[in-house]
């Protein structure tokens, strides 16, 4: 994975839901270490676009390059995948059938049947689990399937949700530890045997989680349940959880929604600090124009699924098309 100057690049991304075109041929790029805002009226397709980037929706058309690698695009040759699943067990089955006709011992034939079922199962499980090696195997056959949300996290993307989606009945600390999941390595065997490695990792993850909580301004709140935190703190906790996977790109979906002026100012400062201290690149959906104009390096405006303007906050503020989208066309 090479570091390019652009963390993310969207190329003619389109998403249709039936007849509705939610996102229409959008080209978009996020330079490294920048804060880019995505604004637009309600229903402009901002969150849909977000969900495409995060790997939740497959785009109908176009592709998304993340850190120089194509991660998301419309599936290509997907029909071939189940055939590949059946190929290996098919070979084993064919050998078994051929052997049974050549008059081999019955025990061997039964063994062949077991082997067929075993291989079928193994290929099915690898297929469902979709590890990195399997993805590479698929690409050798020209099959492309978009990364899933968890693959995107592994690749270096963190996100928050428009409506807070914390694990409500887990403590704040556990929430952050879940965020670290993809960066921890203790497998099931480590867990069962409680290996020193697993215990050390668990301990260090707890310390790191406390650090992150302090970073977002929640020191000492780790033992409380997520749902008992005040609303503003829940937003902060969600950010802590999102940055726990050490992302390169952080997606924030309306981080200041429902906050008062004080809290908004605090959160804006936090976002600035995240970029400075952690070297994050941040993509923001936001309705609060003060926040957008205050911290963004670039602003992209969507309306009805189309990109209508792009530029520095200054340019956007003066763009007649943006004013029209927000306030309606001037009456003649």
């Amino acid at each position: 994975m090479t570091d390019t100057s652009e963390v993310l690049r969207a190329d003619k991304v389109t998403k249709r839901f039936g007849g509705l075109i939610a996102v229409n041929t959008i080209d978009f790029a996020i330079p490294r270490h920048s804060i880019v805002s995505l604004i637009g009226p309600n229903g402009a397709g901002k969150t849909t676009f977000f969900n495409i980037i995060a790997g939740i929706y497959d785009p109908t058309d176009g592709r998304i390059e993340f850190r120089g690698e194509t991660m998301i695009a419309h599936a290509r040759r997907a029909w071939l995948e189940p055939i590949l699943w059946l190929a290996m067990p098919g070979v084993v089955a064919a050998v078994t059938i051929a052997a049974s006709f050549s008059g081999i011992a019955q025990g061997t034939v039964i063994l062949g049947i077991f082997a067929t079922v075993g291989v079928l199962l193994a290929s099915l499980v690898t297929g469902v689990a979709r590890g990195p090696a399997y993805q590479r195997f698929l690409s050798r056959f020209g099959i492309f399937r978009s990364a899933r949300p968890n693959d995107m996290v592994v690749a270096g993307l963190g996100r928050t949700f428009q409506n807070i989606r914390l694990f409500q009945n887990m403590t704040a600390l556990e929430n952050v530890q879940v965020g670290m999941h993809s960066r921890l390595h203790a497998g099931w065997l480590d867990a069962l045997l409680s290996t020193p490695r697993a215990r050390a990792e668990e301990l260090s993850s707890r310390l790191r989680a406390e650090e992150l909580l302090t970073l977002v301004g929640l020191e000492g709140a780790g033992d409380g349940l997520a749902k008992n935190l005040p609303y503003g703190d829940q937003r902060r906790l969600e950010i802590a959880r999102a940055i726990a996977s050490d992302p390169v790109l952080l997606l924030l979906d309306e981080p200041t929604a429902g906050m008062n002026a004080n809290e908004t100012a605090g959160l804006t400062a936090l976002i600035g600090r995240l970029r400075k201290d952690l070297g994050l690149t941040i993509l923001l959906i936001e309705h609060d124009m003060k926040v957008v104009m205050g911290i963004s390096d670039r602003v992209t405006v969507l309306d009805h699924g189309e990109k209508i303007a792009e530029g520095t906050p200054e340019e956007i503020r003066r763009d007649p098309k943006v004013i029209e989208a927000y306030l309606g066309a001037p009456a003649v």
Partner: protein
Amino acid sequence: MTATTAVPPAAGRFRSPRARLQAYAIRHRSATIVVSMALITVAMIILPQVPPLSLIQRQSSWFDTFANAGVFILLAMGLNVVVGLAGLLDLGYAAFFAIGAYTYAYSNSPFSQQDLPFLPMLVVGAAVAAVFGIALGAPTLRLRGDYLAIMTLGFGEIVPIVFLNLDKWTEGTNGIGGIFRPEPLPIIGEFSALSPFAYYILMVGIVTVAMILLYRMQDSRIGRAWNAIREDELAAAANGINTVTTKLLAFAIGATTAGFAGVFNASKLTIVSPEQFLFAVSFSVLAMVILGGMGNIWGVAAGAFIVYLIQVVVLKGLNSMVEGLGIPVLDKINFVDYQYLLFGLALVFMMLLRPEGLFPSQRRRRELHIADELAGPIDEPGVIGALGEAPGSADEFGEAAGEDVPGRDR
């Protein structure tokens, strides 16, 4: 803005002895389990020798009962991983029990003319069950909620029917009989029908080990991931959890535990037949998990033990007691016949009065008593009041308010 929470911080010096004991138990979980199980084992050896237990049945019968109860404890602890920790409703759990039992039957019976050693077969039986757990899980885990429940229900029906109808391989309804008992083990002694003590000790060992391993699993990174999936699958995926493999692992571990139970059960009953693994078993085990307290391993084990004793000992005892009284209508009732009715009633009342189960996990209690917690101290009325929204209700508001991203499974 520092957060305030309803849970008081553990103030080091002023904790009660009980809280300190709890903290110690959590820190040294495996040791606690071993010590507690040892104490319980000793108690179960002594108690049946003194009234009132000695009046009900002989000591060896009690050991027999306890060993059989152990089978259900194992089953309940295994199902607890799938249902209680990962939140996947599995209605066909008895299938894995059956697979473990039949695996042992094939390895140790006159029917197959094999006589393989018991302890390795215990592992093999569990492994075979795990493979079937994965085989069932791989195609079905893309489904959610009700659909998954129906699929597992189907699987649970298919397995006994396959064993029933493949006469040539399984002896059909008669089942595979005359299964060899385990060979004598050092210390424990000989396994026989007359002295079930060896089975009892072996069962205690298996349950102890299973409990330690399951607790470790629950407290690990993977246990946390199961919990996250149970609470919000999409958010779990968006935080880097491979939901498919994690759920598959829950299924595999649940099936493994059932496999252990199956092998043990087959070696103890010395016969396996399809009617031992009908839906009633899946249902009973699920009821044990719910009554005991989903998500709490000790609670589930205790729930299974209590329910089994009620089924097998209490209802029978009730029969003989009522017969002795000579009340005209009551003495005609066979309480054992009505066990599922009583079971159902118990479940209904449980759901009404104490939905988190007899011995709930902390987590479940919190989930099911949201109202109580909201009545607790809320220290920043300014923040909350400004939003007109209480903490904890955020998700209900959120679900209603739009952006509900339908999860996509690929």
